């Protein structure tokens, strides 16, 4: 996280320092960053290839996970299989989990942030619940909610609600006192204060929470989908294993990594779009 935030801060600082040269300088920077990033990915593929093709014993299991076979399978999977369907199912689960976490986390976060008594009463409980790995609820969720989408929604929501709740509450505590004085001096009702000052004032923190939540959701999703469901990326991982389609299994790992990368990029773009030039 800190690495990512640091990266954003550096580009912003460059923007400010060189407004006149922004185009060319940013262009050069982007190119440099792009090249460096590409080189890093290339290095990983190289290590992967060395490990599976050179170091592994000839004809062993490891060779079946080699880059060549994996990318071949990936192309086949993308061209002619149910993979897009499974991706769609997984993304839908992410969205439902995120929506539920927002619907629960934002109002609760506002209440916790606005009321010191509630905060004191809930803080230890939330810290306790937050530190329970969502996956440890898995058997309980399946026993109570049955197999299917519901236990997955429950687990995803449970995983994603904490960063959103805690960031919303932190956002309320960090509201500029001048804004609150202003709305008080304008005789705002508590409702007007909430709608016109508090909620817009915490959007930045909520979006930070969303970004953290998306990272957690994606990590929790795959093992969740290994529980008696018949679609989704986690299901595909187990399915390829059971079919002994090892290069496809490795291709699924690549797909999961790539989609996670895109999701995080989308969350970051959303954050930047809503808060241009902010430090939140």
């Amino acid at each position, binding site marked *: 996280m800190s690495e990512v935030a640091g990266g954003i801060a550096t580009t912003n600082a460059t923007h400010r320092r060189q407004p006149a040269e922004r185009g060319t300088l940013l262009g050069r920077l982007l190119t440099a960053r792009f090249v460096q990033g590409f080189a890093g990915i290339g290095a990983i593929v190289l290590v992967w290839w060395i490990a599976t093709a050179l170091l592994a014993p000839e004809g062993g299991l490891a060779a079946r996970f080699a880059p060549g076979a994996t990318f071949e399978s990936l192309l086949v999977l993308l061209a002619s299989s149910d993979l897009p369907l499974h991706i769609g199912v997984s993304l839908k689960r992410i969205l439902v989990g995120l929506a539920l976490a927002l619907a629960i986390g934002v109002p609760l976060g506002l209440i916790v942030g606005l009321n010191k008594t509630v905060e004191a009463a809930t803080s230890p409980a939330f810290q306790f619940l937050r530190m329970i790995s969502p996956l440890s609820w898995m058997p309980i969720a399946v026993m109570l909610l049955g197999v299917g989408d519901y236990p997955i929604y429950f687990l995803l929501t449970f995983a994603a609600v904490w960063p959103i709740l805690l960031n919303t509450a932190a956002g309320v505590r960090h509201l500029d006192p*001048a804004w609150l*004085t202003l709305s008080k001096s*304008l*005789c705002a*009702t508590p409702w007007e204060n909430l709608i016109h000052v508090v909620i817009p*004032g915490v959007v930045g923190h909520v979006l930070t929470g969303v970004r953290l939540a998306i990272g957690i959701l994606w990590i929790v999703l795959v093992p969740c989908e290994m529980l008696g469901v018949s679609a989704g990326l986690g299901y595909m991982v187990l399915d390829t294993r059971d079919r002994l389609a090892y290069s496809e299994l490795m291709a699924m790992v690549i797909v999961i990594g790539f989609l996670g990368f895109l999701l995080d990029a989308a969350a970051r773009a959303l954050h930047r779009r809503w808060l241009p*030039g902010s430090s939140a």
Partner: protein
Amino acid sequence: MTLATPLLEADSITLGYGNSGPVLADFGLALNAGEIVTILGPSGVGKSSLIRVLAGLQRPSAGRVAVAGSAIEGVHPRVAIAFQNPGLLPWLTLERNVGFGLSFKRQPRLAADDRRVRIETAIRRVGLEHARHRLPAELSGGMAQRAALARCLARQPQVLLLDEPFGALDEITRADMQRLLLTVVRDFRTATVLVTHDIDEALLLSDRIVLLGGAPARQLAQWKIELPQPRDDSVAELGRIRIDIVQALHKAVVRHH
């Protein structure tokens, strides 16, 4: 001349925090419509606290504040306050910041058209027409302060409380804003309390100057200035009052430390 009820009246205000002695003791003030009173005093003497009490943002430990004859329990819809920190909402454009709060339930009812005219006029008065669609992050410090002043003007308040609102402005904009304040007070007969460090500003604008000092702070002296507006600081009488104020302020600072 009939003796009207003062628009803003403060009666034996005492303000203290916790167990320590009061910071402000037995302060009284009465303003009529169209009057400008400036509060001068050493920094840290409690001028800002006094303004907050007058605005109803803070309850005094004792005493009462009344607007147009009736005592206030809290903030009053016809009292506007501007601080040194403009306090613009960063997610609203300048135009929306100026209109912020005009449609709140406890504010005087306004038709949408009237609201638009009010906002438009206020923005024009502070000379920010060209920047109306900008966000606060895209405004200079001076522009932000003018926007905050416009937000007060749009409400057409009966009482205007200004806590060093021109502090961060450059000389020329500052003079512009002082002239603007005088026109607004003349046009709307607003009772205005101004807190400032600047003795010349006080001399140019005020009908009365109140010197706050001592611990606990109280009114040490008061000057009435009965010169017509707009004033020129080369007038001999202003020079005499100026020397008087400087001496009194000096004594107050010594006593304060």
